[in-house]
């Protein structure tokens, strides 16, 4: 029963996404809407993402400094741990969790409100492809903007780690920088972006599906 319901919704979700990919009626209208969404999702989320990222970095640094205290592990590892945990996991996951709450609920409220006020019916009667015009600009905007936000979150987290550990004397400036520059694996950056693109796709298309169908 549960599985058949999953298949039913997954099928409808795919149909919605497929319909949304149809050729736009007027490209410049879609472009305008995509730019508006980029502003809403990107600029609108800067403060909350920045704030949370500072604390992610700071907490990671303080926590590891506490755990490594009195062990034989070199202190500069704190910088290395902050960098990698942020890039691999914390920046994409926590940022996208926060954005799922903020952007996801915004999208659900916007499309749900349009459904309730018959805006979607009005567009359909005009002949507008509503899945295309209402969903795709949001998906495209988030796929472009959310990886940028995640990259920014990773950067701010590392700054947060620095701010929590160097001025408080947990480790020196040189140690932190040495840690941040050690054992760097470029592939991790790619992983961060892949994760953020997948999360971006899910966190915009699922709320849109819930309301538009």
């Amino acid at each position, binding site marked *: 029963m549960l599985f058949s319901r999953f298949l039913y919704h997954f099928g409808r979700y795919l149909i919605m996404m497929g319909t949304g990919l149809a050729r736009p*009626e*007027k490209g410049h209208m879609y472009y305008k809407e995509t730019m508006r969404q980029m502003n809403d999702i990107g600029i609108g989320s800067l403060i909350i993402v920045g704030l949370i990222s500072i604390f992610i970095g700071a907490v990671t640094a303080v926590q590891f400094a506490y755990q490594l205290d009195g062990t034989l592990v070199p202190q500069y590892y704190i910088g290395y741990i902050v960098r990698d945990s942020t890039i691999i996991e914390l920046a994409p996951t926590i940022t996208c969790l926060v954005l799922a709450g903020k952007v996801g609920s915004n999208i659900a409220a916007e499309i749900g409100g349009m459904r309730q*006020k*018959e*805006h979607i*019916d*009005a567009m359909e*009667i*005009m*002949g507008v492809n509503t899945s295309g015009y209402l969903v795709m600009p949001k998906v495209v905007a988030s796929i472009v903007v959310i990886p940028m936000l995640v990259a920014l979150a990773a950067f701010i987290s590392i700054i947060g780690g620095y701010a929590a550990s160097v001025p408080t004397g947990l480790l020196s400036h040189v140690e932190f920088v040495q840690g941040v520059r050690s054992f760097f694996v470029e592939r991790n950056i790619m992983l961060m972006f892949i994760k953020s693109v997948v999360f971006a796709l899910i966190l915009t298309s699922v709320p849109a599906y819930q309301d538009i169908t």
Partner: protein
Amino acid sequence: MIRAENLFKTFDDHEVIRGISSEFLKGKTNLIIGRSGAGKTVLLKLLVGLISPTSGSVWYDNVDFFSLDKKQKRFIRMKVGMLFQASALFDSMTVEENIRFPLDMFTNMTKKEKLSRVDYCLDRVNLPGINKKYPSEISGGMQKRVGIARAIVMQPEYLFCDEPNSGLDPKTAIVIDELIRSITLENNITTVINTHDMNSVMEIGDNIILIHEGVIAWRGDKAEVLRSDNQILQNFIFASPFLQHLREAALERQNELTLRMDKK
């Protein structure tokens, strides 16, 4: 002309529309009336193609709408205008942007041409100069008129109105009715109005169908409403004692006039 042929619509196990067949005539204001829950809105949504029938067909002139593919449906829809119960104006856009939206989306007109078309439509609904206002800054009656302006901006051949008078005072309701009627006559379009406003029935009802429990209980025009002895129609139109009294008075007056004419 729009023709509904043996339409049925079922939601789960509940049959809302049960075999409705009717013609909605060109150049006339066609009214769908009935009590709340009778199936009027479902019928209107079936006619406009927002929902698909369980069985039956809807014909736009000689085209079976539900047999068309998406592209062909879009082509028909470009000939359709609709006024919604709550106007359905986009809150984040100005009046001008709302009216211009279908032009922006579907035409290759220049900005100047679009603006002149918007101005013409606003003039037509007697609202010149409110281009830059937002829907929240204008009254309900004005919103309805902007809704009409948006519905006619693409010069539709078919105009649908879902309860155009709901939430309006009687005077404004008359203005909206007259506007819809004059637009219908001017452009010789097929207008279908879903209403339970008795003023509309008596003023602009060229072709009326009464829906009761998903079937057509009565059909006729505004002149036949008073004379009809259909009990469902009478219970619906003259629901209050005051309206019944008015009807009796009107019939008495009519009889008197007929007698006088006979004597002469």
